[in-house]
């Protein structure tokens, strides 16, 4: 058995015993980098200057509306739309991906058609269709197919703007998630399902316990991407009168005409939520990376903490190889 630390330690000991002279050479100059840095700095200064001095940004208006009840309510609806639509999208995506990979040709084909249709039409059009569903189906009922119905509701009451937005965004997302999940499932080595089957696990157990947890490593990054994208796509719901963040500020600036400041309010909120989601994605990815690398890298917080705690400490002494040999 080889133990890498040991060989490293003996290597260090050897290096110390007979250390060659360090090289002191004149480093290569990079004038191009300095010029590029200067250009970027000037541009950045110009931007900062205009942000501060241009009175039309109306920063006082921005801050006064930033935490107003109407904006916060809109933010709430935006987050609700994002979370619920993504949840629907993910569940639907897993089901569609499994269907797509199924041996049953009808299941696989219907999954293909679903993805083809929902990816092939603009999500804005889908939202409008769901919003106007009552025109197609005035009454919606639950019952035996082609038989009697037990529960009937008026479509106009059932499909509120919010429900239409959730349906439109969620069903559309399902098509995209299906492809992401399918890629994840296909990325898991065939030997894994074989080993699980050889142990007597059923195909559903194999999928749930062995394949999907490993597929997650491939699925998570694009899903994070989709969630961030969904956060912003949810602003399309403003078209069907859902008072999410964008529509909330639109309602305000349609009265006071502070268009740009209020759009900046919305943008700042979108940026904040996106940042939170990005951080969340980092930790979810880390969780599912367990076992994929020999050792997980430190999180930024762990790195800062280690940096702070070792700041004044002496540099770590080379490992005494003698100790290890005895152990």
């Amino acid at each position, binding site marked *: *058995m*080889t133990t890498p630390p040991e060989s490293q330690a003996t290597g260090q000991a050897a290096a110390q015993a007979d250390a060659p002279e360090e090289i002191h050479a004149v480093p290569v100059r990079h004038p191009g980098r300095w010029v590029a840095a200067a250009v970027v700095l000037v541009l950045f200064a110009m931007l900062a200057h205009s942000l501060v001095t241009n009175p039309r940004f109306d920063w006082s208006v921005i801050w006064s509306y930033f935490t107003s009840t109407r904006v916060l309510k809109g933010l709430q609806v935006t987050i609700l739309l994002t979370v619920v639509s993504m949840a629907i999208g993910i569940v639907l995506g897993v089901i569609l991906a499994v269907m797509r990979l199924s041996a049953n040709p009808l299941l696989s084909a219907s999954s293909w058609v679903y993805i083809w249709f929902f990816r092939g039409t603009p999500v804005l059009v889908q939202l409008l269709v769901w919003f106007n569903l009552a025109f197609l189906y005035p009454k919606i009922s639950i019952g035996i197919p082609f038989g009697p119905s037990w529960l009937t509701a008026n479509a106009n009451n059932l499909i509120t703007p919010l429900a239409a937005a959730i349906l439109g965004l969620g069903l559309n997302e399902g098509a995209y998630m299906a492809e992401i999940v399918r890629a994840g499932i296909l990325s898991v*080595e065939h*030997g*894994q399902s*074989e*080993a*699980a*089957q*050889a*142990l*007597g*696990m*059923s*195909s559903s*157990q194999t999928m749930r*316990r*062995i394949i999907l*947890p*490993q597929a997650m490593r491939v699925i998570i990054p694009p899903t994070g991407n989709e969630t961030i994208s969904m956060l912003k796509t949810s602003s399309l719901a403003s078209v069907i009168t859902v008072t999410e963040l964008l529509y909330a500020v639109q309602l305000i600036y349609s009265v006071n005409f502070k268009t740009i400041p209020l759009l900046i309010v919305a943008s700042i909120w979108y940026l904040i939520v996106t940042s939170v989601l990005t951080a969340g994605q980092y930790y979810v990815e880390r969780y*599912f990376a*367990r*076992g*994929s*690398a*020999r050792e997980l890298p430190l999180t930024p917080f762990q790195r800062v903490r280690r940096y702070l705690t070792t700041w004044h400490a002496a540099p770590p002494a080379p490992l005494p190889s003698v100790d290890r040999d005895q152990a």
Partner: protein
Amino acid sequence: MSAAAGAGEAGAGLPGSPMVLAEGLHKRFGRLEVLRGIDLRVARGEVVCVIGPSGSGKSTLLRCINHLEKINAGRLWVDGELVGYRQHGGKLYELREREICAKRAEIGMVFQHFNLFPHMTVLENVIEAPIRVKGSARAEAIDRARQLLDRTGLAEKSDAYPKQLSGGQQQRVAIARALAMQPKLMLFDEPTSALDPELVGDVLAAMRDLATSGMTMIVVTHEMGFAREVGDTLAFMDDGLVVETGRPRDVLANPAQERTRAFLSKVL
């Protein structure tokens, strides 16, 4: 030979009956005939080593025995029961998934590339099937897993992930994982072929232990030394057929068939 006569010979679960019996076994992948009439008999407690050139159908034979492949013709019995089918009134019925799973659970299999579950620790790898498939209690499964890991000297690696282990350690975990299901038959598919030479010994030692404990084993291998010392029988396969079987010493020292001789002259 008719199916009925074969079934009689296979005799379900009787002590003297063979653990594995293949008669005229055929397996095709599309138009490629991989197995072309295999006849093989493995007694209880016997260790059969299978050698042969690559592409001769050794792995496919193991996969057929473990229901991972469906056979196209011939008959195959494991422990007196037909593999893949149920015979009823002269007709064959395909087994349902649940029935196949139940049979696979009684046969352990070890793969060339270990195929440990990388997202689970060593201990989780070993207890997964006993808990999910057999319905063992968690504490009991953990107890048994620790015993098995202890036996191959991997007790302190319980909480490591497979990637943190050497190939030899991974393969020994894979053996422990298969043994945790308390199988009646163990199949090894070139278990040492993916290992660095210095790691092969530990895995072979674990297999030798297992053979001494009376386990019925079919080992596809290129380790002639292991075949000679541990194997009760050596089967040479070529081109989808079992060309020659016999005591390992005899087959290795003076093969009866020309093809066996040609193969051995290349590998020995």
